């Protein structure tokens, strides 16, 4: 199998406890270009972190193989480790160090000399806008800034494959969007594998999205390709017009507090817009987003189980 320039996963499974039959990953297969940002989405316990840890050579799979740019995560781990860097889930900048010291020491672990590491660390911190905080103790920085320090750490490295396991979890919306800018730049330079709970994040940043559910890869492709997995292409949301939408042609996705969301066809969306306009209801029509796709795929998978 030629997997140069690609991320190839074949029949990958991980069982943590055979006695309980707990399959964290169950026969996962994928073959994508190792370029841009690849986002893995899924519920808690879907297997996102397990897959990232296997790809980052931290965990051995129970069955199957995984290769990045032709390098096997098990057989070629030593070579692969020269080319990867990771920010693990819940990673924190070490409290008693400054951002400069954090980046510098990580580079030294990657084999850089002190002077060279210091120079690169300063440049990397400047790239994420942390010039002012370079010599401030990490413990005195805000949550968003601490996360930027970690991003600067992998950004400073020579690694061309970056793994980010839920990098924006727990951040406020403004800090999250700031971080998206840096991640977006990072994705242009290097292949970035990102796991996230925030579907908006995957929608904004990812070139390719993988949907994991109970250890199975239930969806893979660009946003457009995933949209095609959903029968309906438009989402109509309306307030106080539940009777109109419930009776229409389509699938009611969510209904709460008098607000109804209907997934429907383009023609039906157009027809409903006229009716809703005439009835004076507040409504919106948009193409189905990743939220809708995710709920559709996961619900379909739940029903299949």
């Amino acid at each position: 199998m030629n997997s140069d320039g690609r991320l190839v996963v074949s029949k990958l499974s991980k069982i943590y406890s055979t006695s309980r039959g707990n399959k964290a990953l169950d026969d996962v297969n994928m073959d994508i270009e190792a370029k841009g940002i690849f986002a893995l989405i899924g519920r808690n316990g879907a297997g996102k972190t397990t897959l990232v840890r296997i790809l980052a050579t931290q965990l051995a799979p129970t069955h199957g193989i995984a290769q990045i740019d032709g390098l096997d995560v098990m057989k070629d781990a030593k070579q692969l480790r020269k080319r990867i860097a990771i920010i693990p889930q819940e990673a924190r900048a070490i409290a008693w160090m400054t951002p400069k010291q954090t980046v510098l020491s990580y580079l030294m672990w990657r084999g850089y000399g002190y002077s060279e590491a210091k120079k690169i660390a300063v440049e990397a911190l400047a790239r994420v806008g942390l010039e002012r905080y370079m010599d401030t103790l990490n413990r005195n920085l805000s949550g968003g800034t601490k996360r930027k320090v970690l991003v600067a750490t992998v950004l400073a490295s020579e690694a061309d494959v970056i793994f980010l396991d839920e990098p924006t979890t727990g951040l406020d919306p403004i800090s999250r969007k700031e971080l998206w800018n840096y991640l977006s730049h990072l994705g242009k330079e290097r292949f970035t594998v990102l796991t996230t709970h925030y579907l908006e994040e995957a929608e904004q940043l990812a070139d390719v999205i993988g949907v994991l559910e109970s250890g199975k890869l239930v969806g893979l492709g660009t946003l457009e390709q995933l949209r095609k997995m959903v029968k309906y292409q438009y989402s109509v949301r309306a307030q106080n017009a539940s009777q109109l939408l419930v009776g229409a042609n389509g699938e009611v996705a969510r209904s709460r507090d008098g607000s109804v969301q209907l997934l429907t066809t383009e023609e039906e969306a157009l027809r409903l817009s006229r009716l809703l306009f005439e009835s004076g209801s507040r409504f919106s029509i948009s193409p189905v987003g990743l939220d809708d796709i995710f709920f559709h795929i996961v619900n379909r998978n739940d029903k299949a189980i």
Partner: protein
Amino acid sequence: MNVRSLFNQIAAGILVNSVYEMRNYPIVLLNTVLSPLSFLILIVFVSRGALIQDAIVGGFIMSMFSNGIALQADLSHLKNDFKLQDMIVSSPASAAAYVAGMAMSELVYSSPALFVLGLLAILFIKAGLISIMLVLGVLDNDVSHICCTGLHSCNIFKRYSSELCFLKAYLYYFLNLTPCLLSYNVDT
């Protein structure tokens, strides 16, 4: 991996786990000296100065043993609370270089205590060959204890680390059992 890279990786461990903390929080310099010195002062007071040599050696043992224990806590803290170990695993750094750096960082961390105790040893212990061996034995035993604690996580050492530690302990006790007059000169 070339020697320079290995040196840099070990140096990174020393910087993270001791030098930066000592530089950013100088109070820890005092903290590392407090435990062995309090032990030393107690023994000296109780023995009215007669056991100062034993107290100094005891101070060495206490200081180094504390560091062995501290290494376990530090490795666990950095792994679980900061996820540093996960970042290092997915990097070119080898497990042995990571642990060696961490083990050496504990020695650097205890350097203020070792300096003070060393000074006291020069002043109060008339060193003979055996006494120097005794002190080196203590240091060697404790350094190996620190290293074995850490190297236990490396596959290659996993099998033998406990045995190594066990043998080192006997080396120390053997030296400790040498007659007092051979160990160091006690003014009576």
